[in-house]
């Protein structure tokens, strides 16, 4: 995992080299004087070579030594420093962590909603396999997977903010303002989870312990909710972890729709919109690392939940 994190950070670090032309000119504009550009490059370390070695057709492979941007970024990172914003001159770290809680709140709310919808729906579908109610649930689930966030979001706004006027269309001023964004973000996840729970329940219902439970006279309700669900939820936990990445990426779109002041909006408006490349790097880095860490945690939880894996 550490190797993967190292590579991800390295890739993000080197992303800035992809900018066509010179970042200083892009930021300061064509009218900037040579002196302004030099000052800007000096301030953000852009005057230093990009990597430990460089290759040009004239001079071939050239060793640049330890004084390079790649090393700079790592040294900063290890000191908890994500660099200084190209636009606002504020530390990128502060800008990101002002917005971080809003995104996590949104993702957590979306996950809760998804679970609250998916478990009952999946259980009903799974226990009524191939009956009418299962077909309906499966169809709704497929619909949920296919409807993109940016279709669900405006549709919900239209329905609940424009027509019924229950919620306000954008912003995060009131506590209930989280409902629409969270449902929007959680819709696809709840659909995926429903399918997971359904197939999991169907599989578990065929196990021997279910026959035992039924034979000892437990009601069907007890069998399903006490025994089947307990085992059936294990694979669902894994999916939850893996889907967190989709949720984090989806929150970029959701935040845009609802003007939710989270990390995604920071990335889009202040980062990409204003070509603040240092800020973009920071956002991509923080979102990716959050995802990797969450995934590893899921793995741990999964191992604890399923004794068969713990032994193996």
């Amino acid at each position, binding site marked *: 995992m550490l190797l*993967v994190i190292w590579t991800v950070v390295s890739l993000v670090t080197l992303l800035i080299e992809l900018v066509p032309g010179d970042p200083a000119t892009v930021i300061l504009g064509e009218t900037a004087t040579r002196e302004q550009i030099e000052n800007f490059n000096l301030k953000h370390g852009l005057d230093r070579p990009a990597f430990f070695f460089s290759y040009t057709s004239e001079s071939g492979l050239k060793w640049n030594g330890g004084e390079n941007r790649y090393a700079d970024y790592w040294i900063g990172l290890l000191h908890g420093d994500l660099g200084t914003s190209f636009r606002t001159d504020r530390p990128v770290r502060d800008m990101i962590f002002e917005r971080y809680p809003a995104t996590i709140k949104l993702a957590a709310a979306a996950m809760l909603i998804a679970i609250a919808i998916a478990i009952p729906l999946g259980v009903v579908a799974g226990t009524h396999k191939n009956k009418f109610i299962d077909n309906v649930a499966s169809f709704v689930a497929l619909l949920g997977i296919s409807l993109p966030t940016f279709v669900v979001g405006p549709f919900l706004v239209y329905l609940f903010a424009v027509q019924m006027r229950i919620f306000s269309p954008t912003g995060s001023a009131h506590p209930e303002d989280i409902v629409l964004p969270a449902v929007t973000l959680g819709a696809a996840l709840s659909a995926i989870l429903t399918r997971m729970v359904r197939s999991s329940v169907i599989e578990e219902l065929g196990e021997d312990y279910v026959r035992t439970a039924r034979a000892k006279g437990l009601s069907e309700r007890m069998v399903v909710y006490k025994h089947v669900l307990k085992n059936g939820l294990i694979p669902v936990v894994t999916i939850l972890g893996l889907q967190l990445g989709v949720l984090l990426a989806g929150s970029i779109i959701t935040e845009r729709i609802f003007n939710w002041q989270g990390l995604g909006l920071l990335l889009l408006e202040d980062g990409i919109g204003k070509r603040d490349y240092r800020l973009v790097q920071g956002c991509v880095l923080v979102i990716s690392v959050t995802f990797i860490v969450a995934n590893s945690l899921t793995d741990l939880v999964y191992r604890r939940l399923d004794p068969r894996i713990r032994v193996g």
Partner: protein
Amino acid sequence: MNRLTYIGIAIAAVVVLAAIFASVIATHDYNAQDLLLRYASPSSDHWFGTDALGRDVFSRVVWGARISLEVGITVVTVSTVIGTVLGAIAGFYGGLVDKILAGYVFNVFLAFPGLLLAIALVAFLGTGLGKLILALCVIGWVGYARVMRGQVLKIREYDYVQAARALGASNMRILFTHILPNAIQPLIVQASLGMAGAVLSEASLSFLGLGVPSVPSWGTMIEEARGFDVLYNSPHVLLFPSLAIALTVLAFNFLGDGLREYLDPKQRAR
């Protein structure tokens, strides 16, 4: 195949036809503005109404099919080829090669959440058709590689592969004439679902303003139409591109699900 699969095929066919014959089907020039006729409701002249600049929504939706499929087909083709080759190599050679490819390279690409890497790439590279396709391929290939690796790992142990080896067939011959043709089925399913994913990604990036500039994309149209007053006064501007993207993605998902059942005899027998 079940009914949903046929529905999927039918919708996909309509989208493909719209994309190919966009210039014939579109009733207006997709960029022609008529500022006196902004936000017009659907009528016999403008079937889907007009948008903020008085442009014909129907024509824009039809042309939107072209960019969607252009990006989708290219991304799926390129990703499938790259994924198949790398997945097959990892599965076939195993050992250190597999450790490096599957244990490391695949995991790095899986470590970026969803669209984020594509967003980042376009943000740094700039917008454009080629760059958009490149970004989507970078995030797309690893899915195919994983499926392919799993398939090859399974198939290379089969008796007929061992028999071919015993007869002295070269690695290349075993891989290309014996393993690949038998490993291709799940890849077809993956490609169909991947098509839905690529179309969705293109629309998402366009929605975020990172798509191909100055072509009518469904994502861009939704972005332009989601303002509060537009929703209030003329929701049709939002409705039609939303329907188009939703139906297209749904169609390819139906198709993928149907193919999966059709190609897997175990599920079919049920």
